[in-house]
């Protein structure tokens, strides 16, 4: 061990001494410069040509540049220091104006370090674009640094500000209900998982993203990747089912072999389908894609429980450690989704431009109506499942008191598996519904996770009905807060509600009073 360490250290020292500053040579090539790209405000793939940018040191002009056909510009600088950058307003095409941000009246000051090639953001906007549009005109994509495009991060309210106060209250109540239903559908799993295993699943938001992405994939046409994923999940699902149903009927080795074979078959099939690629392309309507997504979400949840959480519980890993594991899993899942599906912001095709339907005083597109109906049906279904079926009663029993349930003969591990399957499926469904209402992108789940946390704490951690009530309350509060406050503060209000609840009633609305500290 010690000699190995020494070898590594020696290798490092040689590396440092032998290499004559690779980084130094790399960034000294151009000396100091300022550069950037000016993009067309409506079409972000296009640059704007012919804008003149001059750089001054005090009163002396040290350089100038004109954007090329892609909107790129670069000005070389004589050395480090503070420069004044002036964008010639005359050269900006008359249909745009400079967006005031860093640049004020076409001027800004920039500090440039030695050997620094600094990007400078210059953004345009249409003169009509009012301040309410500011968020969507955010040009963080223009940064040449590798920050992923993070344009509009707020949640759309779908309400135009022109109407009267009363109309807006009604309209916002409707969209609050919709948002709350989506939160409730996604959060039931989170709450039940906490109830049965005392684990806060920080990866739950990424199950939501997963569902939305899968539905997008299969509704726009699944080629090689979709088929491969399907095969992989079929293999995993088979293994989980074999494990779940035949656990006590087969010997341990047979069981392990059967599960291994199932997973292997899935991987082999996935490879074959991946190699075949687009030859077996197909696509289904969105509702069928949503069903596929729900099933795959359930498989993902179930296999996470079966192959990660159950072994960890049997190793007696402490709860706090488990939270950290779930954070790690969330990171893995989110970025695997990012690699597979990309960072784009997409919407389900064919559901965007719809004529509004008027029901009484409320006006909404048919897709939102469908989302609401589906969410209500699913919530009622889950409530019936929990209230009247054997497995539902068992879930509530385990959630109530794990040890007592176990001693009265309930197979706790199997119930937990079902809970994870149910939670994963519902999260995936929540993702599809959320994606229909908003946009689909790789961080949508994390943003919804914050609202889900607020919902489950509000309703009472561990109770399924609490998640429903809490979800509705959080959705309504978030949406109605935009009546008086900026919409970007929506999540802040949900959080404030949660903190208030923790102060006055830590067990939540429907939680049982017990010592939680």
């Amino acid at each position, binding site marked *: 061990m010690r000699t190995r360490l020494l070898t590594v250290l020696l290798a490092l020292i040689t590396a440092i001494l032998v290499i004559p500053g690779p980084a130094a040579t790399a960034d000294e090539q151009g000396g100091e410069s300022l550069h950037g790209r000016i993009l067309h405000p409506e079409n972000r793939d296009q640059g704007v040509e012919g804008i003149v940018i001059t750089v001054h040191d005090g009163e002396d002009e040290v350089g100038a540049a004109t954007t090329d056909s892609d909107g790129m510009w670069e000005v070389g600088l004589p050395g480090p220091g503070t420069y004044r950058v002036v964008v010639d307003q005359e050269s900006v095409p008359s249909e745009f104006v400079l967006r005031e941000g860093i640049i004020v009246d076409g001027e800004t000051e920039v500090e440039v370090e030695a050997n620094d090639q600094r990007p400078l953001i210059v953004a345009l906007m249409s003169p009509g674009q009012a301040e309410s549009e500011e*968020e969507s005109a955010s040009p963080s994509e223009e940064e040449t640094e590798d920050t992923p495009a993070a344009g509009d991060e707020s949640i759309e309210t779908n309400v135009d500000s022109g109407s009267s106060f009363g109309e807006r209250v009604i309209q916002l109540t409707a969209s609050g209900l919709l948002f709350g239903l989506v939160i409730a559908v996604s959060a039931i799993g989170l709450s039940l998982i906490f109830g049965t295993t005392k684990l806060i699943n920080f990866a739950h938001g990424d199950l939501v993203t997963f569902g939305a992405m899968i539905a997008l994939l299969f509704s726009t046409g699944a080629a090689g990747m979709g088929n491969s994923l399907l095969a992989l999940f079929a293999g995993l699902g088979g293994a989980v089912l074999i494990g779940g149903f035949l656990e006590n009927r087969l010997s341990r080795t047979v069981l392990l072999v059967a599960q291994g074979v199932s997973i292997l078959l899935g991987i082999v099939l996935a490879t074959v389908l991946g190699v075949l690629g687009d030859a077996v392309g197909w696509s289904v309507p969105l509702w069928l894609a949503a069903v596929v997504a729900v099933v795959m979400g359930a498989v993902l949840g179930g296999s996470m429980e079966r192959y990660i959480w159950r072994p960890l519980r049997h190793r007696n890993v402490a709860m706090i450690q488990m939270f950290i594991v779930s954070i790690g899993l969330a990171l893995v899942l989110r970025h695997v989704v990012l690699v597979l599906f990309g960072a784009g912001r997409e919407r389900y095709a064919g559901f965007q431009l719809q004529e509004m339907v008027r029901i009484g005083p409320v006006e909404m597109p048919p897709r939102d109506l469908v989302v609401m109906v589906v969410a209500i049906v699913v919530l009622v279904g889950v409530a019936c499942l929990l209230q009247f079926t054997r497995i539902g009663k068992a879930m509530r029993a385990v959630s109530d008191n794990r040890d007592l349930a176990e001693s009265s003969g309930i197979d706790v591990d199997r119930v937990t598996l079902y809970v994870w399957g149910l939670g994963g499926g519902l999260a995936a469904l929540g993702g599809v519904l959320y994606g229909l209402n908003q946009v689909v992108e790789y961080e949508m789940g994390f943003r919804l996770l914050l609202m889900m946390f607020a919902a489950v704490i509000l309703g009472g951690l561990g109770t399924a009905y609490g998640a429903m009530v809490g979800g509705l309350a959080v959705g309504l509060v978030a949406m109605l807060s935009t009546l008086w406050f900026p919409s970007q503060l929506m999540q802040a209000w949900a959080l404030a509600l949660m903190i208030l609840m923790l102060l006055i009633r830590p067990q939540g609305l429907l939680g049982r009073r017990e010592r939680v500290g």
Partner: protein
Amino acid sequence: MDILSILAESTRSAIGPIAAIYALAAIGLNFHFGYTGLLNFGQVGFMLVGAYGVGVSVAVLGLPLLVGFGVGLLCALVMALLLGIPTLRLRADYLAITTIAAAEVLRLVYRAGFAEPLTGGVYGLQNLASDFRSINPFDGGERYGFGALSYSGNNLWVLVVTWTLVLLMVGVSWLLMHSPWGRVIKGIREDEDAVRSLGKNVFAYKMQALVLGGMAGALSGCMLAVYQAAIQPDQFKPQVTFFLWVILLLGGAGRVFGPVLGAMVFWFLMNFTEGLLQGLGSIGLLPFLETTDYGAIQLAFVGLLLVLLIVFRPQGLIGDRKEMLINVK
């Protein structure tokens, strides 16, 4: 692909200013999790208020840099109190949920359009470092160092100051942990009820630890603002917190040098994997991936590292396994 130059570049970053800044924030997290057992999943929020304390004071209000540092630390104090009062009396998971949510909400508020006069919205704030550079003893344009280990004068100045602060904080945490206060804090991590039954005010001790660690986080945010001379809200995404967790668990939670070692090893690994991926990509060994995916793969790798560490080596490189396994609740 030149493996030696990747190694050299990784080493350069392991002792660079970024590693020092993360070490500082991880020391704060060590106060929270390593010693007190508090699950803070929102350390990046403390860094954000620290950085914006400097940013708003210097760039918008035109105050001197030192005042900016003061404002940043004060903001962290207020934030710790706001988070701690409702949650520290409850079970550990409530603090975890509240901090992760608060940090993200703070980022969304700071980047929002209505806050733009003060925070610069999505563009952030610029030109923050002139005060700091005016007292730079090194020549800003020169390069110092030997071989691959060379830094520009400005970076070297940040590097020296930040590592000094790190050492200072390491000293402070050593002294604190060997004081009666430190013994109570560790006692809370091991068994809160036992400490309470000895007549200690557990809530107050936890709050002190939360404030102290949060201020260390804010200090690192201030140094980040000074190092980059510009801040944008989107660099304070939740993954920064998770980097800090990996750093802490890699080095060893509950050890004074754990976060420092962890930060160096972590940034070495990050740059090494990045160099490796780019090297492999440039010779065509990664046919399915585009260069834009490398960042995502790295982050997935960080997540995997977090899982593997906590399952197989919860004590990290220099921690004590018994100590880390004791806080089983």
